[in-house]
């Protein structure tokens, strides 16, 4: 069995094992962490197989494409699965100390792995309707994770999260149906071929339906309102994996369809993406400025960072797409890490409210350092990973070889300004939580958390911070992958030939 199939089977098997051991907390936690570790191994092997640019294809039931459903792993999919596995492992370890026994008994680990099952499936499928099914697997598990525990704020967030995501799914489904009606196929490679012979205006109309569907999941302007209303309500481990992964699955889907299928009327479709990217960056960062809840502030920053990724996709040059891919994996690591840290400060200081936290630099310099790394990376300070991600996207905007001329420059300037405001937000957290003296009666007490739990909370954070440093100090190595993946994405023929076997 090859790594591609294993990447989907591992989370499924783990989830089932967790369901079988619902009564035993220890067994569930063991399976929960071990399953993620195995997934990480599988993802590394998959990366080794597709890392040199080969595209792996698995045909369900050996039906030839485009008649059967195919699983396809290209470089982008490989990278995404690998980063997902890294975050999954970090969150699974963190969860041992963070998620309470009641939630574990109700199947927390099982649903975490069912969600990973959906996420990996979504990255690896080569069939647009199959992508819808994977999205649903991921969403239903995420609904459960969001509402598991049933606390009042959670339920308030869950109602909004579930409703808006279901509306987005119905758009996605309608788009699939209409696309099938027009082309008579659902295989993405075959769609890419058929789309070239369609009337561009009809194709663009369908593209807009997909833009709404994926845009809602990716939380781009003006479809992002569910995100800051819900991401700060579940346990920290859950918000961390949501913040890191779920919106990025939406971005991945956007990248996939807008590089493979909808590439006819690029001036309109990608022009629209360009405008939306600008608004997404600005509204996200402005929304964050007035927030004083740690996780709500970070939630708004997810939105603004999504803007950068969409900007790279919209500019549609090799450098820009490479920037998007680099941004994707940098952002998943950094953002999940910041959420995990917000959980630790809440455990030590008893609150997510920035005004009620303080004095952490004096109390735990190590945690301050661990926060400083991802926070400055998010703000784009060299030599951390965020700097190189922003650098690539902004440079692509200024390069002048895009189809948008002066507008690309405008957007690049906007991106720089938003970067500055992001840095401002991060220094706000730094000043409020770490720098200022603790408010009366709210001094942080690391001692409140038993040492074993403290280790479980800090270890994943430290590992992710180390990864951020590694990406920052050796960007060439990581950027090389991003650049080659962009090359693949911009030459759909490679993908099409791999899937359809060069018969066309």
């Amino acid at each position: 069995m090859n790594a591609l199939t294993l990447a989907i089977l591992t989370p499924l098997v783990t989830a089932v094992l967790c369901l079988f051991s619902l009564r035993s907390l220890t067994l569930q936690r063991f399976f929960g962490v071990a399953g993620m570790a195995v997934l990480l191994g599988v993802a590394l092997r998959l990366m080794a197989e597709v890392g040199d640019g080969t595209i792996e294809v698995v045909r369900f039931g050996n039906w030839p494409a485009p008649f059967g459903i195919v699983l396809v792993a290209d470089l982008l999919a490989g990278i995404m699965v690998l980063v997902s596995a890294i975050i999954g492992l970090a969150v699974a370890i963190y969860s041992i100390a963070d998620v309470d026994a009641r939630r574990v008994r109700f199947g927390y680990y099982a649903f975490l792995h069912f969600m990973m099952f959906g996420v990996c499936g979504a990255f690896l499928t080569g069939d647009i309707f199959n992508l819808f099914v994977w999205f649903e697997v991921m969403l239903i598990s995420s609904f459960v994770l969001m509402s598991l525990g049933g606390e009042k704020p959670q339920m308030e967030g869950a109602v909004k999260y579930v409703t808006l995501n279901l509306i987005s799914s119905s758009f996605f489904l309608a788009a699939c149906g209409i696309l099938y009606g027009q082309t008579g196929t659902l295989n993405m490679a075959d769609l890419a071929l058929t789309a070239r012979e369609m009337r561009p205006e009809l194709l663009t109309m369908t593209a807009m339906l997909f833009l709404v569907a994926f845009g809602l999941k990716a939380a781009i302007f003006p479809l992002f309102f569910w995100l800051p209303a819900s991401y700060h309500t579940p346990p920290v481990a859950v918000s961390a994996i949501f913040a890191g992964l779920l919106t990025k699955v939406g971005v991945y889907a956007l990248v996939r369809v807008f590089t493979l299928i909808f590439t006819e009327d690029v001036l309109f479709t990608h022009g629209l993406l360009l405008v939306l990217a600008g608004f997404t960056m600005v509204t996200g960062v402005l929304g964050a400025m007035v927030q004083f809840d740690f996780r709500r502030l970070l939630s708004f920053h997810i939105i603004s960072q999504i803007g950068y990724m969409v900007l790279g996709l919209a500019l549609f040059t090799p450098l820009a797409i490479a920037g998007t891919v680099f941004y994707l994996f940098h952002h998943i690591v950094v953002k999940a890490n910041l959420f995990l840290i917000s959980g630790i400060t809440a455990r030590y200081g008893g609150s997510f409210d920035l005004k009620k936290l303080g004095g952490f630099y004096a109390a735990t310099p190590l945690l301050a350092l661990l926060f400083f790394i991802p926070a400055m990376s998010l703000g784009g300070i060299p030599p951390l990973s965020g700097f190189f991600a922003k650098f690539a996207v902004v440079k692509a905007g200024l390069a002048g070889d895009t189809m948008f001329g002066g507008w690309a420059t405008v957007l690049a300037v906007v991106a720089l300004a938003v970067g500055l405001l992001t840095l401002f937000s991060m220094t706000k957290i730094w000043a409020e939580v770490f720098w200022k003296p603790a408010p009366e009666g709210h001094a942080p007490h690391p001692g409140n958390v038993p040492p074993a739990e403290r280790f479980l909370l800090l270890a994943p954070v430290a590992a992710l911070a180390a990864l951020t440093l590694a990406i920052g100090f050796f960007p060439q190595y990581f950027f090389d992958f991003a650049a080659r993946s962009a090359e693949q994405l911009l030459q759909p023929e490679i993908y099409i030939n791999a899937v359809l076997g060069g018969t066309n």
Partner: protein
Amino acid sequence: MEFLLAITIGVLYAAAFYLLLRRGVVRIILGIALLSQAVNLLIFTAGGLREGGVPFIAEGQTALAATSADPLPQALILTAIVISFGVLAFTLAMVHRADQATGTDDVDDLKGTDQT
């Protein structure tokens, strides 16, 4: 026939969005249910309507007759129905729990977590 179905789909969409814009949580759920039905009909119609033949391969033949309906949209709809059924069941349970936890079914009152 397409015309009639198009009108029906339009009415279903309109009703669904009207319900989604109401404040009562139960109405919103009914809206989601209607929306999934509208989408199913949309797939059915967009997939092309053909009179006559069920998509079975007749005895002695090796391929579908040209007059038979396309089976794929039907398969898509079947999958979509199963998924939307499961999701709807979950949503109802979730709303019940939300009602217990928050004591309201008015979405305008679900603002507790939005205060800064």
